[in-house]
């Protein structure tokens, strides 16, 4: 089996999977339909202030698993749906930012700087077209880098990294995520520490489940869904409700902008925007490939670099950055969208999630079984078929298909989503809360799980109140078990050497960087994600 054979098998797994219906005699596989549905849902969710891609992914996961079961056949339809949401939500996020000056996500904030002034000048549709074109261009570039880099990186990891190095790499990832997400390395370390502590409760190798305080409830540990959805989604719902409670609902009315002039995106415009999109796509992809940094920094860097360039080349008749320059939207959207594909590089090649969307992809793969993201996925076995590699190329195919949807119908659908702003947040957030609690219960079928989730929700609420990013917590919770297992194995394999993390040069370098990145980032400050 060569590389091309595997690529072909991945493509056929998507197109020739279980058939849902036929269209003029052409069988349409269920995976294709799921990508399409996920993509549309993603745009709707992205365009709804107060919601984001991870919320939709969290809520749909138990429904998808219940519908498709736990067989390997379920992997591509379920992951295809989640990838559709991820892609759709990325473009959808620009809609409320441009039309109503209400960014749904922190990275969409920079889109408001030029998008909303354009909308006020009667160029809303053009601004949306610029955002869509730039976002999809950045995303496509990032996906191409993912397809090329992930397999090679995985092969390098598998050939050069042994157990001590892999343990050190996991520590490096945690330290990196703690240091760069949210802007305060100290708070990131606290968040990661709490995530590790939570995952170690009720687990371990001894007969007695550690840290369970002798209780039956804690002896089984915290289910992953309660911790992840509690801190990430319920915590965000609590915080959103509190903001509304404090404001007691904004009494302001939404300003209607009337459109005038040329709303089309012409070839001349594209030529003018292309250098900004290209630069931002490279910045976003490079940043996205590092676990945990996320799209906010990419958007900020993309915008800053573009502004510097724009100010040099600007003529008098061009608006300033911040006054409705299409180049500002293009730079921001290309940068934050190009993070999403590249963020899957550490997921697929190392099994380390880099952002919230990747967390749900890993959760889905874990729940269904048969696909364990990591270096082993990319083993090109010549004699027998490696089913995980087929799924990996199937995933790449679903990403390509979602991009094609984005290029074709994404723009039209996105531009029709302005209506979502009218859904009042005070109605939406309680419904999302009940939806999330229901999603947790149908997976765990015990009220205890709901109580755990609410407990984690309160933790997430206070973390947000103190500007502690919940992402290091979630990623530490997911990686905690793997870190302990690999440390135990490495310790044993090194002949019980207590300095096993420092004896190999590669592991020692990883450990040095782990400490270095915390020290380096200590004085930096940023907004919490």
């Amino acid at each position, binding site marked *: 089996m060569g590389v091309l054979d595997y690529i072909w098998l991945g493509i056929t797994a998507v197109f020739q999977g279980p058939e849902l219906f036929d269209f003029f005699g052409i069988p349409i596989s269920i995976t294709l339909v799921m990508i399409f549905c996920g993509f549309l849902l993603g745009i709707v969710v992205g365009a709804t202030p107060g919601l984001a891609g991870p919320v939709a992914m969290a809520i749909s996961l138990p*429904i998808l698993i*219940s*519908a498709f079961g736990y067989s390997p056949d379920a992997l591509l339809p379920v992951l295809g749906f989640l990838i559709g949401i991820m892609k759709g939500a990325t473009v959808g996020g620009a809609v409320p930012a441009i039309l109503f000056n209400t960014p749904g996500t922190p990275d969409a904030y920079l889109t408001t700087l030029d998008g909303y002034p354009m909308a006020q000048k009667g160029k809303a549709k053009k601004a949306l077209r610029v955002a869509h074109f730039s976002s999809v261009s950045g995303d496509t570039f990032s996906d191409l880098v993912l397809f090329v880099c992930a397999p090679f990186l995985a092969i390098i990891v598998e050939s050069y990294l042994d157990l001590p190095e892999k343990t050190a790499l996991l520590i490096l990832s*945690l330290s990196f995520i*703690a240091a760069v997400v949210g802007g*305060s390395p*100290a*708070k990131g*370390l*606290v*968040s990661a*520490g*709490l995530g*590790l*502590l939570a995952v*170690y*409760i009720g687990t*371990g*190798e*001894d*007969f007695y489940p*550690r*840290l369970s305080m*002798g209780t039956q409830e804690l002896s089984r540990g915290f289910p992953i869904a309660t911790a992840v959805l509690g801190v990430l989604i319920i915590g965000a719902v*609590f915080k959103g*409700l*509190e903001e*509304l*409670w*404090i404001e*007691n*609902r904004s009494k302001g009315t939404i300003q209607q902008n009337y459109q005038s002039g040329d709303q089309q995106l012409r070839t001349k415009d594209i030529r003018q925007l292309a250098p900004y999109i290209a630069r931002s796509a490279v910045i976003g992809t490079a940043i996205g490939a590092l676990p945990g940094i996320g799209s906010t920094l990419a958007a900020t860097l993309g915008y800053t670099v573009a502004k510097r360039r724009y100010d040099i080349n600007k003529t008098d008749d061009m608006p300033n950055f911040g006054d409705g320059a299409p180049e500002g939207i293009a730079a921001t959207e290309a940068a934050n969208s190009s993070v999403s594909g590249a963020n899957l590089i550490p997921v697929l090649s190392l099994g380390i999630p880099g952002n919230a969307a990747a967390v749900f992809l890993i959760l889905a793969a874990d729940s269904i079984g048969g696909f364990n993201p990591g270096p082993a996925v990319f083993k090109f076995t010549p004699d027998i078929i490696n089913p995980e590699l087929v799924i990996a190329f199937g995933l790449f195919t679903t990403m390509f298909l979602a991009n094609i949807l984005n290029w074709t119908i994404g723009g039209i659908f996105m531009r029709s989503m302005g209506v979502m702003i009218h859904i009042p947040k005070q*109605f939406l*957030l*309680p*419904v999302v*809360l*009940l*939806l999330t*609690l*229901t999603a947790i*219960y*149908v997976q765990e*079928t015990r009220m205890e799980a*709901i*109580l755990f989730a609410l407990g984690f929700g*309160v933790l997430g*609420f*206070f973390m947000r109140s*103190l*500007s502690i990013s919940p992402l290091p917590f979630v990623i530490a919770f997911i990686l905690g078990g793997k*870190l*302990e297992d690999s*440390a135990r194995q490495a*310790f*044993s394999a090194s002949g*019980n050497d207590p300095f096993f993390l420092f004896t190999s040069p590669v592991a020692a370098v990883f450990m040095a960087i782990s400490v270095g990145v*915390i020290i380096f980032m*200590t004085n930096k*400050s940023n907004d919490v994600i």
Partner: protein
Amino acid sequence: MPEKSRSNLLLGLACIVFSLVVVFIWIPLDTDSGIIEKVRRRLTIGDAMAPSIAGLFILIGGFVLITFERNTRKQPNIMASNFKFIIRTLSILFLSLLIMRYSGPFLVAAVNMTLIEPLEYRLLRDTIPWKHIGYFIGGVVLIAGLIAQVESRLSVVSVGVAILATIILILIYDFPFDDLLLPPNGDV
């Protein structure tokens, strides 16, 4: 000149105290094996190692907070209003979960007063309408209660939204799937 926030200092101290309690009290008292154990003359990593590393993360985080990040800008404080909000929210949630848990069995008990042969909720929990009663009433109280808290009043619209949303959730989660149990039917 605005008063300087001491939020990072207090948070850092709290983290240090918490991590010391975790490492020196909770872990030794509540874990069977130590950090390193000797099993059959071989050294192995014990169950206390991983949570101690977690405690170390929190300790280092707390230490960095009180030393290097003590005077950073933008230090949000935890206010009394944060506690007030979360206590009110949790009260609504626990009330709605109690209603969700017990309204089905309670209604069965009420119906049993009119019947000669008593019904048992456990046997009815997979039949309509019994299996939806607890979720429906509890769900409506949860959504309407939270909206009422935010709006400082209970409106007909919010109750309508709550009823509609709960029905839609039942339609999404229960009707298409035989194997999914809505709360509280896995517990009763």
